[in-house]
C-alpha cells in the first residue's frame, strides 16, 4: 500500500498509547449490525501503479480524442491550445495540494492569483468586480438569477431563446424549487427574438447569451436600457470567453451581471468538467454576490497582502442566510485561466479572438458552398449554425465514422423539436488547420451526396 505510511509495528505502538487492543475498538460507536468485518465484496484488491495505468489507459484509448481528428465542436465547450507552462504550474504541489486559503499567512500564493484572476475577469467582461470562480457557466447563471431576485425582490426571470439549454435547465432546476417564474423563450436559431416586450415590473432579470447558442453576437444596449427602465437586471452569459477578446464586452453594453464559462482559457475539454464559471458584476451589488472573494489588505507590518473577504455572505459564516451554498469552487481551473490569460495579455487575447473569428469566417464561406448547406448566421464569432438538407445527427454520426467531429447537432440539445433537427452547430478555433477544414468540407459533401 504505497500511499499508507504506517507499518503494523507503528499501528501496535499507537494502539498501545491509545489504550485499545485493536482498531476495531475505535469503531465501537458503529452499530454492531452495520460493522463490516472484512473488505467489501465485489471490488478488486489493491493494484500497483502499472496495473492502474494499464486499465485506465485502456479505457482512454476507447475514446476518439478531439485533437487527433478534425474537430469542430463547440456549444459551450471549446478546444483551444493551452501553453504547456500552464499545466506545469498547476502541478506544483504548493498550488495543487493546498486548501481554500482560509489561513492567509500560508496562502498568499493562492490569494494573490485569485486577486489577479478577479481583476482579469472584471476587465474582460467590462465589469467592476468579479468573484473567485463558480463551478461552471451554467451554475453561475443560476446563481446570477438568484442574485437578481435578491437584489430586485422579484421572482420572474426571462431567458433568451439563445441561451444554452443546459444553462436554461440548470436555472429552471435551481430557481424552480424556489417558486420562481421562468419565462424561457423558444430556441432562436435565426436571431429574431424580441425580449423587450417581456420585461415588466415583475421581472427580476433577463438572461441573454452572447454570442447565442446559435452563434449570433447580441447587442445588449437597448435591452439593458429597457431592463433598467423597469427595474430589472440584465444578465449576460458568455459561453465562449474568447469572444470577449473581440466583441464589446457586456459590461460596456449595460449588463448588470456577466457570467462566463471560462473553460476556453487554460482548461482542456475534459469531457465537460471540471470547468470554471466566471462571475462579474457592479461594485454596488457585491454584497449580494455568491462565491468567494479575495480582497487586498495589509499585514501586521503594513505590507500589502490578500485575504478572503466579505465572508459574511458565505455559508460557513452565514449558514442558512448565505447568498449561496457554494463552498468548494474551481480554484485550480481559475489558476489555469489566469495563467493562460497572463501569457496572452491584452494583445494576445485580442489576437487569439481575431484568429478564431478569421478561422470561422473562412470555414463558414467554405461550408456555405457545399450543395444543400445553408449558413444561418450573418454574424458570428467562432461558431455558427448550418441548416442541412436532412437531420444533422445521423450526418454527424456518419462523419464520426470517418474520424471527423463535425459539430454539435442541435437535436442533441433539443431532441425532437421540429425545425431544429436539421441544424448543426459548427465551431472553429485557432487549432483548426486548413487540412481540418478540407476534411470537413469534403466529408460533408460525401455524406450529403
Amino acid at each position, binding site marked *: 500500500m504505497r500511499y499508507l505510511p504506517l507499518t503494523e509495528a507503528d499501528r501496535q505502538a499507537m494502539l498501545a498509547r491509545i489504550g485499545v487492543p485493536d482498531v476495531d475498538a475505535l469503531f465501537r460507536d458503529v452499530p454492531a449490525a452495520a460493522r463490516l468485518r472484512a473488505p467489501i465484496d465485489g471490488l478488486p484488491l489493491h493494484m500497483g501503479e502499472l496495473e492502474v495505468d494499464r486499465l485506465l489507459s485502456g479505457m482512454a484509448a476507447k475514446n476518439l480524442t478531439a485533437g487527433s481528428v478534425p474537430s469542430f465542436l463547440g456549444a459551450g465547450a471549446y478546444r483551444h491550445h493551452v501553453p504547456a507552462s500552464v499545466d506545469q504550474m498547476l502541478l506544483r504541489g504548493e498550488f495543487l495540494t493546498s486548501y481554500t486559503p482560509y489561513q492567509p499567512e500560508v496562502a498568499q500564493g493562492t490569494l494573490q492569483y485569485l486577486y489577479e484572476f478577479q481583476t482579469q475577469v472584471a476587465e474582460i467582461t467590462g465589469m467592476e468586480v468579479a468573484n473567485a470562480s463558480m463551478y461552471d457557466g451554467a451554475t453561475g447563471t443560476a446563481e446570477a438569477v438568484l442574485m437578481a431576485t435578491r437584489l430586485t425582490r422579484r421572482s420572474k426571470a426571462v431567458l433568451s431563446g439563445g441561451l444554452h439549454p443546459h444553462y436554461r435547465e440548470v436555472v429552471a*432546476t435551481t430557481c424552480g424549487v424556489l417558486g420562481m417564474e421562468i419565462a424561457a423563450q423558444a430556441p432562436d436559431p435565426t436571431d429574431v427574438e424580441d425580449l423587450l416586450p417581456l420585461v415588466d415590473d415583475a421581472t427580476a432579470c433577463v438572461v441573454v447569451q452572447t454570442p447565442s447558442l446559435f452563434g449570433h453576437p447580441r447587442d445588449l444596449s437597448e435591452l439593458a436600457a429597457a431592463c433598467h427602465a423597469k427595474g430589472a437586471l440584465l444578465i449576460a452569459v458568455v459561453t465562449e470567453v474568447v469572444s470577449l477578446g473581440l466583441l464589446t464586452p457586456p459590461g460596456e453594453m449595460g449588463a448588470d451581471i456577466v457570467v462566463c464559462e471560462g473553460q476556453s482559457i487554460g482548461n482542456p475539454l475534459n469531457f465537460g468538467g471540471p470547468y470554471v464559471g466566471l462571475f462579474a458584476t457592479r461594485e454596488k451589488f457585491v454584497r449580494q454576490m455568491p462565491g468567494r472573494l479575495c480582497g487586498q489588505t495589509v499585514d501586521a507590518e503594513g505590507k500589502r497582502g490578500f485575504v478572503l473577504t466579505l465572508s459574511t455572505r458565505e455559508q460557513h459564516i452565514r449558514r442558512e442566510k448565505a447568498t449561496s451554498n457554494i463552498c468548494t469552487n474551481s480554484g485550480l481551473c481559475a489558476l489555469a485561466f489566469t495563467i493562460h490569460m497572463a501569457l496572452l495579455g491584452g494583445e494576445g487575447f485580442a489576437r487569439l479572438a481575431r484568429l478564431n473569428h478569421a478561422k470561422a469566417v473562412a470555414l463558414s464561406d467554405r461550408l456555405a458552398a457545399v450543395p444543400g448547406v445553408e449558413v444561418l448566421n450573418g454574424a458570428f464569432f467562432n461558431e455558427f449554425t448550418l441548416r442541412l438538407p436532412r437531420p444533422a445527427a445521423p450526418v454527424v454520426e456518419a462523419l464520426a465514422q470517418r474520424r471527423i467531429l463535425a459539430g454539435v447537432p442541435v437535436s442533441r440539445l433539443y431532441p425532437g423539436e421540429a425545425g431544429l433537427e436539421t441544424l448543426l452547430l459548427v465551431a472553429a478555433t485557432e487549432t483548426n488547420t486548413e487540412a481540418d477544414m478540407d476534411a470537413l468540407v469534403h466529408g460533408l459533401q460525401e455524406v450529403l451526396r
Partner: protein
Amino acid sequence: QEEPLLFELDNPGVCGVDLPEPPTAALRLGKVRPRGNLALPSVSEPEVVRHYTRLSQKNFGIDTTMYPLGSCTMKHNPRLNEKMARLPGFSDIHPLQPVSTVQGALELIDLLAHWLKTLTGMPAVAMSPAAGAHGELCGLMAIRAALAARGEAHRRRVLVPESAHGTNPATAAFCGFAVDSIPAEDDGRVSVEAVKAKLGPDVAAIMLTNPNTCGLFEPQIREIADAVHAAGGYFYCDGANYNAIVGRVRPADLGVDAMHINLHKTFSTPHGGGGPGSGPVVLSAALAPFAPLPYVVHGADGFRLVEHAGEAEGSPFGRMKGFHGQMGMFVRALAYMLSHGADGLRQAASDAVLNANYVLASLKDVMSASFEGPCMHEALFDDRFLKGTGITPLDFAKALIDEGFHPMTMYFPLVVQGALLIEPTETESKQTLDQFIGTLRALAERAKTGDEEYFHGAPRLTPRRRLDETAAARKPVLRWTRPAPVAQAAAE
C-alpha cells in the same frame, strides 16, 4: 524578494504567446462593435513562469507539510491520478461528441458509479454534482421531488444539527426549505430523543453528518433514521467525513437515503486551493427515480447517456450543471480507488481513525479534549486549556505555522467553545505525527507559561504576518486598478 502583482509586470509590446497574424478579412460581428481597450498586462513567458512559481512558494500544501485541517481531509494526492486525468483520451474529448466516440469515458463513469454504490451499499448514484455543497443540493432536490411525487410538497422543514457544516443549512435554504436546528448533546452527539422532539408532518428530511463534525460517530444513527422514516421524512447524510468509515460501514446499512461523497476529500482528488471538487450523491431506492440528468446507462450496444427527461425511465428532478459532471475528478478518484482496492480503502479509513486517536491520546493531558475518545478521523479540542492565558485558539493555531505545520481548523464546529479540530488523515506517518504532537505539546506548555506575546505575534516566518481581515471587509478592494499617474516632476 517581494512578488509584484501581474499587472505591475506589464510591459506593453511583449507577449507570452506567439500567434500567427490572422488574415485581414472583414469582420462579421453584426451589430456588435469590436471592443476597444483591453487593459490586460503584457508579460513574457519567462516572467509568467517565474511569477507563478514564486507565488506558489508562498503557499503551504500537503506536498510541503502536514496540513491537519479538520473537516478537510487533506491527504496525499498521488501524481498517478494527475497523469491519468491528463490522458488525451479523457482530457481531450468534447462533452457533446457522438456517444459512439466516447465509450471509454462512459465506461469509466459507470465503473466509478459501481464503486461508489458498492462501497455505500446504495442502489443509485447521481454523478453530476460539482462539489459537496452541490451534492447536498442534489440530495435535497431529489427529496423535494420525491415528496412532491408523494403529494407531500407541504413538507418544508429540514432538521439540521447545530454542529453541521454551514453548507447544510445554506443548502436547505437554497432549496427552499425552512431550517430547524437540533441542539447537540453534551457528549457531542445528536440524540434520537432530540430528533423525535422535532419530527412532525411538515418535516421533509434530516441532514446529519456522520461521522459528525465533532469527530464522533453518531451511535444512534440507525434509530434516528428509523424515527425520521417513520415520520415520513428522508435521511440526508452529509458525507464530508466519509473518509473515516469507507469499507468499515455501508451508509445503506445506517438507513441513509442520500449522501454526497466529496471525491476531493475521501478519494483524494486535489483541493487545488479551493477546487474543483466533485460531489456524487448516492441515493436509496426511494430517491433513485428522481436522480438528476444526465446519467449513464449500459445498453445492449454499449454505454449511453440519458440527457433529457423524455428519455429517462424515472422522473429526474432536472439538470444541475452543464454537461455530465466533473470527468477530470472522476478519473482521479477511480485511479485512487483502484490503487487502494477494497482492502486498501478499508485500511485507509482504519489508519485515518487510528492517526486521529493517536493524536487525541497523545495530547489530551496538555490540551483540553472536548469529548472522551475514541474519536473517528478527527480529534477535537477546545480552548479550556488556554483559559486565563490571554491566548486564543487563533493565536495558538497561528503559532503552529512557524513550526512548519499548517494550522488545524479553528472555531468549528460551533457547538464547542474555541474548537481546534485536527484531522491528520491516514497519509501521515507516525514519525510526522510524533513531530506534530511534540510541537503541539511544546506550544501548549509555552502557552501555559503565559508567553502571550509570542502567540499574539505569530506567525513570524511567513511572507506575510497576520493580515487585517477587518479592514479588508470594511472597504473591499477586490481588484487591481492602475494607480493614478504620478505628476510630472515640477522641475520640468
